[in-house]
């Protein structure tokens, strides 16, 4: 079957150049990067080169990069590493579950948590963050880009607020890294999480930026890897892949790849908006160039995702729970969408591998599938008769 993949916010394919860069580290260069001998020296050099590349992507020092297993670990390390019982955390209602559920657990262990709401565009108001500050506020954690809508939060303004108040600022930049240029010092954050597989590195590798001078308690104890911040033998092939993907992302920004991608996304958005009673979630807010979240009144997003998949188009809705069933999105609900509207929303997310014909395929398939679903939807038929 001809298949088009437009679910790159879930994961991206490893680019051929990335795979090539990794390949020697599965065989020929197999050493433990902590070993004294030749084999260890070889892989140590590769790890440190990758660290340089990732540092360049985030415009920070190499010594500020801690390699992790991915976004969830980065978020957990940032939060557990800083927050103690009695501390106050400020976060938002639209964070990824890696942050939300960590906050929930920290709350259960004696921390206080404030959840800042978002407006109908999905944006946090920095003034709300400022007002939420307390004497015991230890950390602000607000994401850079939202995974479901692609909406970019005003992290630089929040960074200023954090700096003035002398509280730590962490941002989950998993959905921003590789998609928009990131400058950690401009954001003014102390901690920033990225994940490799969201920008064409393999699954199972990521990094946490830790600003120089930030004292972070490790979560994993063991050897003195990663400056004693993350014990465990380095995932060398993964780290090499992450470094390569970072290089490719930077080169892409120089070519203006992000603008090309935004144009492609906008074309698809224009096509889909022509469908009756359809709209874009997060409209009017700045967004990463690859993501669009659209609702089609009167349909079940779940059925649409399945119907599209059976015809070769991979997209997604909400967050998949462990059984694979779909739960209403906490992000869209927080933006004030009615439950029916939230359930009628679909996320399309592009990757570097997507081409014009993929967008064309979606532009043809989605409208006809939405029409079919509506013909069979008691909800939609009722509302049409109502009009």
């Amino acid at each position: 079957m001809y298949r088009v993949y437009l679910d790159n916010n879930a994961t991206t394919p490893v680019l051929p150049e990335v795979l090539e860069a990794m390949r020697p580290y599965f065989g020929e260069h197999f050493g433990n990067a902590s070993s004294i001998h030749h084999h260890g020296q070889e892989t140590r050099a590769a790890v440190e080169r990758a660290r340089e590349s990732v540092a360049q992507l985030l415009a920070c020092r190499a010594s500020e990069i801690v390699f992790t297993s991915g976004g969830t670990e980065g978020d957990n390390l940032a939060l557990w590493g800083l927050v103690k019982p009695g501390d106050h955390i400020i976060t938002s209602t639209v964070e990824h579950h890696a942050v939300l559920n960590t906050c929930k657990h920290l709350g259960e262990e004696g921390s206080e948590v404030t959840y800042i709401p978002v407006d109908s565009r999905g944006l946090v108001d920095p003034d709300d963050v400022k007002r939420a500050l307390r004497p015991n506020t230890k950390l602000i954690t607000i994401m850079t880009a939202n995974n479901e809508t692609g909406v970019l939060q005003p992290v630089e303004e929040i960074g200023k607020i954090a700096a003035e108040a002398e509280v730590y600022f962490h941002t989950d930049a998993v959905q921003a890294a590789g998609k928009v240029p990131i400058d950690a010092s401009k954001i003014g954050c102390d901690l920033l999480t990225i994940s490799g597989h969201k920008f064409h590195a393999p699954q199972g590798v990521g990094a946490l930026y830790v600003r120089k001078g930030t004292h972070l308690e490790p979560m994993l104890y063991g050897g003195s890897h990663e400056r004693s911040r993350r014990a465990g033998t380095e995932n060398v092939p993964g780290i090499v892949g992450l470094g390569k993907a970072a290089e490719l992302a930077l080169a892409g920004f120089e070519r203006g790849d992000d603008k090309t991608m935004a144009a492609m996304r906008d074309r698809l958005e224009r096509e889909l908006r022509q469908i009756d009673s359809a709209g874009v979630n997060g409209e009017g807010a700045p967004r990463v160039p690859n993501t669009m979240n659209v609702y089609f009144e009167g349909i079940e997003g779940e059925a649409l995702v399945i119907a599209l998949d059976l015809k070769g188009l991979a997209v997604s809705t909400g967050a998949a729970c462990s059984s694979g069933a779909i739960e209403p999105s906490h992000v869209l609900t927080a933006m004030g969408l009615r439950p029916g509207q939230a359930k009628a929303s679909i996320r399309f997310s592009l990757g570097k591998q997507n081409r014009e014909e993929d967008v064309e395929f979606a532009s043809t398939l989605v409208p006809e599938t939405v029409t079919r679903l509506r013909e069979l939807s008691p909800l939609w038929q009722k509302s049409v008769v109502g009009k």
Partner: protein
Amino acid sequence: MKAAVGCDPSAEGSPSSEMPTADSIAVAMSGGVDSSTVAAMLRAEGHNVIGLTMQLWNQRRLAGREGMPEQVHGRCCSLDDVYDARRVAETIGIPYYVVNHEERFERDVVRPFVQEYLSGRTPIPCSLCNNHLKFDQLLTVARQIGAERVATGHYAQVTFHEETGRWLLKRPADKSKDQTYFLFGLTQEQLSRTLFPLGGMTKPEVRELARKHALVIAEKPDSQEICFVPGGDYKRFLDAYLAEQGEPPLETPGEMVTTDGQVIGEHNGIHNFTVGQRKGLGVATGSPLYVLQIKGDTRQVVVGPDEGLYHRTLQAHRINLISVAKLGEPMRVSVKIRHRHEPAAAAIECTGPDRIQVNFDEPQRAITPGQAAVFYDGDVVVGGGWIESSG
């Protein structure tokens, strides 16, 4: 050159024949032997099969509450069952999806289930689930994703009757597995889009076929209990559910009375009783006593001797007719008043809109409001309704 990821190089270019066609069949897969075998059978016959599992109830919701077990294993909608269904789908090579219908299930099955007990009746949630979820919601989803028909692992048969132009529901070849009692609510439209591929088979044959197809679940034990009530302890479930909803716990105590109205004791709540029950009445008399009737409005439980349980007639409402469009003249049928009941000879007659009276040839024991009365003409289901009262 197409750069689409995961694109099968051999199928590059135009859409392939794998796309859903009018012939596509959605199989409702629970992860059990029956529905898994159905999927394998239809796939082997060359149909385009799409596996669907309905996520109906989150077993973790009430875990640990009001004495409910902390750990939930191997029950409907558990991760284990979804895992099994997914493995089967993978083995036989069909697309597979989980669809979430928890909201609808709670509204149309769980809430009424709780309400029936609070009203002194004994509900059958499986029939409600078939009517509202499996053959309504699931069928809609199936059609939306391109499958015009749904197949399930129920033991029953569907045929089209040329002369009357009606779809018929019939008892299966394996009478010991007959599930038609729970399917009496299916409409003509639903039946026309339904397949019961196990209707002509026995359970051992089904298991044998599952083994032949090398399905991992071939030896999985059958489930008998109500899927959302772990261990079959419905009282504990009611307590836990009401507590979760922030509703007051079940306080339906009242009087225990005899048929002539004499109060002989107190009881701890009408939901603890069902018609025909003998144990746990908490009153001691010379001769054995049985629950004859539960009065929802006065919370009285009427008790009496065994012979008081026998009645010649019952009134049913919310009728669904299958083999006939309407009931004109009284009709000779046999009637089942609970799942494990030997159909009894009776005449049925229409006594009002959406109402039928059943006149049994011989008195029947423990006719229970809330259960269904299902009418049979031989193996053919004539129709059925919900028991309101006996008399």
